[in-house]
């Protein structure tokens, strides 16, 4: 009887396990890479991390012609960054916030900046402020300065569009347009926050 119950349970779980192996991975990656990435995706899912960014990273590698080892390494790195992002933002952060936070950590921003931004936003979505913070650093703004500006907008309760507008202004300024440096505006130069931990 016990054997049969085990058989029934296995019959129940086997299709689930097969479904867990994302069809996109098996269709776009070689079998060994698909299996290795599938293990990473499964373990991330079991740890409560978002899995879709991992699948996208693998698909990105496939489309851009990377070999299996490189794809595997990139996905494994992203798993680690998502884990660090969850450590920074806590279990209440959703998948989009964790993904954005992983990008910020990858860009060299410290976890403390994410935690302070989260505290200032108090239950409002974090995706856009974190993404803008990351973009500012990508545009060449020093992380401390970028963090102070974004935290200032968050402290004032500004909507997401204003974060994006800040990034646009910085982009224009940095790329040689004649717009004034938005980071020099008094409203965006808070001195209240201590320097960001690096």
């Amino acid at each position, binding site marked *: *009887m016990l054997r*049969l*119950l085990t*058989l*029934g*349970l296995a*019959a*129940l*779980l*086997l*299709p*689930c396990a*097969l*479904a*867990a192996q*994302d*069809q*996109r991975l098996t269709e776009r990656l070689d079998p060994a890479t698909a299996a290795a990435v599938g293990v990473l995706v499964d373990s991330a899912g079991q740890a409560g991390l978002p899995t*879709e*960014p991992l*699948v*996208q*990273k693998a*698909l*990105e*590698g*496939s*489309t*851009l*012609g*990377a070999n299996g080892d*490189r794809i595997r390494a*990139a996905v494994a*790195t992203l798993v680690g960054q998502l884990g660090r992002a969850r450590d920074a933002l806590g279990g209440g952060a*959703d*998948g*989009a*916030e964790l*993904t*954005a936070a992983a*990008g910020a950590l*990858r*860009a*060299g921003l410290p976890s403390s900046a994410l935690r302070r931004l989260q505290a200032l936003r108090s239950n409002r*979505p974090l*995706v*856009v402020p*974190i*993404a*803008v913070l*990351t*973009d500012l*650093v*990508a545009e060449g703004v020093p992380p401390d300065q970028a963090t102070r500006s974004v935290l200032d907008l968050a402290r004032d309760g500004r909507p*997401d*569009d204003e*974060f*994006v507008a800040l*990034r646009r202004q910085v*982009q224009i300024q940095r790329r040689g347009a004649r717009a004034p440096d938005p980071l020099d505006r008094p409203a965006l130069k808070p001195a209240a926050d201590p320097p960001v931990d690096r």
Partner: protein
Amino acid sequence: MPADHDDELHDELLRRVVAELRRPVHLDPGLDARALRAIRDDQRRRPPARRHLWLAGTALAAGLLVAVMLRLPASGGSAELPAVAAGTLETRHVEIRLSAPASSVAVVGDFNDWDPAATPLQPTADGGVWSVDLQLKPGRYHYTFLIDGRRWEGDPSEPRATKSDFGAPVSVLTVS
């Protein structure tokens, strides 16, 4: 008459049969219990796999149903199901443009499973400029352009990803 004789014999036989059937039958009081016990024993002696085949079949059917349900969202590939977007937020209209002398331009990214065939850009009337409209949820997207089916090019109007995992130029689009 022989026929009358035969009828008498048949009548006699019928009377005896009826009399036998009408005779009261005294059953053993423990018969019911023994019969039920025998039925249970018989069921226990049957091969268990056969007896519980329905259980495994039901579990398999349930598993397949779960598998189908799990697979449905994963096989999408739609530009409206981005990787990093918040699930409940409304989509935004985003126009992606690229100015490039080319015979074909496509965009690949987190929003279309990096599928080069999914999102071709169309040439605009002013010539040399290619564009496509997307519906994206708020979030942060990585993407790049495929020029003439063989060359990767980042979006000059958006920031580059800080580190490229695979060597090609990848841009980042933030949708608010």
